[in-house]
């Protein structure tokens, strides 16, 4: 009972603190047009009530967790978080895994026909943009997750791909399928160009330079009207072509869906293969300890550059799909917020973990889309979810499991 009382007291204290914090911003609104002050005292009541309840729930859940832990005298030496443990056993079961994979593949293939009608294919379009971000997140996963190079300007490579297609199709009439590899190569070249000067930089210096590079790209796109169409962007970009067939709106959307789905599969395949290759091992070694890695004879420059170039390649590639799918691009699609979003997908999903990154990318892209009903609050909720996720699972949704060799098992947990 005394415990309950202290919890209550703490909750009241926290509520009072938040009332103080939100006092000026939530209560007073100064209307400078007609010199009026709007007082909204009712907001304070809401804040007080909600924070008190949340604080109380929080403390009770903490206490409950402690009690649970005491009861099950920590059987496994790892912290023993319940969801992770069950997920892990699930993933350890190879047969089940394969079945789930087949199920997921079938579902993904049938998806556009299940959710669309001839008139309404909104969900397909939403899924295409979500899958575009899945590829982006998987690409950034190579740079950040595997090689450990923090990149805050990743969206720039995406922009390079998109503008490559837009400009080439405008100027030379090149088709989608010609431009798809060209966009990827353009992204890769930009990755190399960025990578060269900053090879020497480490950690957060690297982050800020990539951030600067991303911003510079956007500003140039915005202001160089003659080439890039300025803030208005480029319109009338041709959709992907299919042997000169004429497609209606729904078919176009479904076609884009299958293209991007194929790219997702390709990205997963390449990343998995790379991860267990010589170069993938070199990336991970570099991420863990640069000095030790170089001492082991890994070529630092080549390894870092390849991580940048390959990460950027996917962004450029999918940039072409983005431009083709939207018919229209402008610099607003390539802001720092988007870079941060992609990075958030990688970290939320669990750095280096392919399954986790896919889940996180889908969640982060689809949630705001379907939260449009609460349009005003969706970014607020989004920010909160990001903080909460980090507080509860700082290692990401599905953390990256290393190949482990334990006595008595054959190989064991190698998957992603």
């Amino acid at each position, binding site marked *: 009972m005394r415990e309950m009382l202290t919890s209550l007291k703490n909750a009241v204290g926290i509520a009072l*603190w938040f009332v*103080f*914090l*939100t006092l*000026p*911003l*939530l209560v*007073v*609104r*100064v209307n*400078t047009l007609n*010199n*009026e*002050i709007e007082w909204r005292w009712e*907001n304070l009541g809401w804040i007080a009530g909600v924070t008190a309840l949340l604080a109380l729930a929080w403390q009770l859940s903490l206490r409950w967790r402690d009690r649970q832990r005491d009861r099950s005298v920590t059987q496994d030496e790892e912290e023993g978080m319940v969801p992770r443990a069950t997920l892990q056993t699930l993933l350890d079961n190879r047969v089940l895994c394969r079945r789930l994979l087949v199920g997921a593949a079938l579902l993904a293939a049938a998806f556009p026909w299940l959710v669309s009608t001839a008139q309404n294919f909104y969900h397909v379009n939403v899924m295409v943009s979500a899958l575009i971000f899945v590829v982006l997140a998987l690409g950034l996963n190579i740079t*950040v997750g595997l090689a450990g190079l*923090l990149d805050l300007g990743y969206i720039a490579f995406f922009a390079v791909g998109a503008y490559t297609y837009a400009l080439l199709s405008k100027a030379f009439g090149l088709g989608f399928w010609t431009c798809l590899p060209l966009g990827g190569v353009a992204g890769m070249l930009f990755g190399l160009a960025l990578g060269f*000067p*900053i090879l*020497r*930089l*480490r950690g*957060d*210096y690297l*982050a*800020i*330079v990539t*951030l*600067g*590079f991303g*911003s*510079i790209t956007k*500003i*140039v796109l915005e*202001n160089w009207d003659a080439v890039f169409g300025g803030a208005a962007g480029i319109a009338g970009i041709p959709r992907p072509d299919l042997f000169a067939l004429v497609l209606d709106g729904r078919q176009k959307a479904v076609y884009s869906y299958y293209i991007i789905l194929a790219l997702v599969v390709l990205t997963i395949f390449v990343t998995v293969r790379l991860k267990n290759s010589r170069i993938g091992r070199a990336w991970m070694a570099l991420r863990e300890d640069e*000095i*030790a890695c170089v*001492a082991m004879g890994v070529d630092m420059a080549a390894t870092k550059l390849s991580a940048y170039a390959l990460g950027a390649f996917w962004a450029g590639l999918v940039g072409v799909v983005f431009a083709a799918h939207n018919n229209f691009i402008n610099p607003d699609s390539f802001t*720092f*917020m988007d870079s*941060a979003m992609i*990075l*958030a997908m990688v*970290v*939320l999903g669990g*750095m280096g973990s392919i399954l986790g990154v896919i889940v996180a990318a889908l969640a982060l892209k689809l949630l705001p889309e379907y939260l449009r009903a609460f349009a*005003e*609050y969706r*970014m*607020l909720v*989004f*920010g*909160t979810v*990001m*903080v909460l*996720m*980090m*507080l509860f699972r*700082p*290692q990401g949704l599905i953390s990256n499991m290393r190949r482990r060799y334990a006595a008595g098992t054959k190989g064991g947990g190698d998957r992603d």
Partner: protein
Amino acid sequence: MYNDREQAGACLPVFCATFFSAVGQTMDYEYLFELLAGGVIKGSIYALIALGYTMVYGIIQLINFAHGEIYMISAFVAFIVAGVLTMAGHGGLSVLVLAALVAMLYAAAYGYTLERIAYRPLRNAPRLSPLISAIGASIFLMNYVQLAQTPDFLPFPALVPDFEFLEPVARYLSSIDLIILVVTVVTMLALTVLIKYTRIGKAMRATQQDMVMARLVGINVDRVISATFIIGSVLAAIGGVLIGSRTGQINAAIGFMAGIKAFTAAVLGGIGNIPGAVLGGIVLGVAETLGAGYISSAYEDVFAFGLLVLILIVRPAGLLGKAVRQKV
């Protein structure tokens, strides 16, 4: 972070070369001085915000992305206080001072709460987790202010009277500019004293050097980190109020760009280094203003980031940063 190094000269050649090639053709000195003065003023604000970044980074190696939002929130709080008081019929410098004090109080409260909620539980998490948490907090705070107040621009009341003695140099230095300069210099001096001579300053230096050792000798590291956040936030609040009065308008999105620029300034000077943050802020402000004045104002940010990239290629640890030799 607190050691002066006289190596600012390293960046000078690059800087001068771009500078004189741009100025060479016209050499209109009045215009040049006007730009220089503007750049220094702008740079002082960057420096004030950059200090918060650099202090936090020096201690817990975290890029506090939400720092720009603290600056934005304090500008809003000052706007609200000033708005209520001006409508009640008061005005002048005293209202600005009062508004600034309230803004500083709130900035400190927000900085402290932010650290407690979003960063402290992640002290031992992987390095990128607090960064994501910071980005989330930044998005949250920006949208919170947009919803609670307005997404539009708000006119910040003009509370600074025109000083008569500035008449002859009014072209280069308005009265608000003078206030910015004086306040910045005084703040920097106060901060230096705080860090060099007070107990908490000593504890901060110790924590920065070695957190484990600091804890072993009895320093309450959590309290030191809270103090760092509070001091950084108060400095950002000063910057927010000053910039509000100078530009005359505020908006919920101002924190983002100011935050990025200030972080750039901190890196430019050598992150974790306090004099470096000040120097970086001023170099950045001047470079931006000169670039905008002589070449094109649309590319202002390109000059800022371009300069950063150039300097980091020449001196990867920033202007005043020590090149730390890694030990194995």
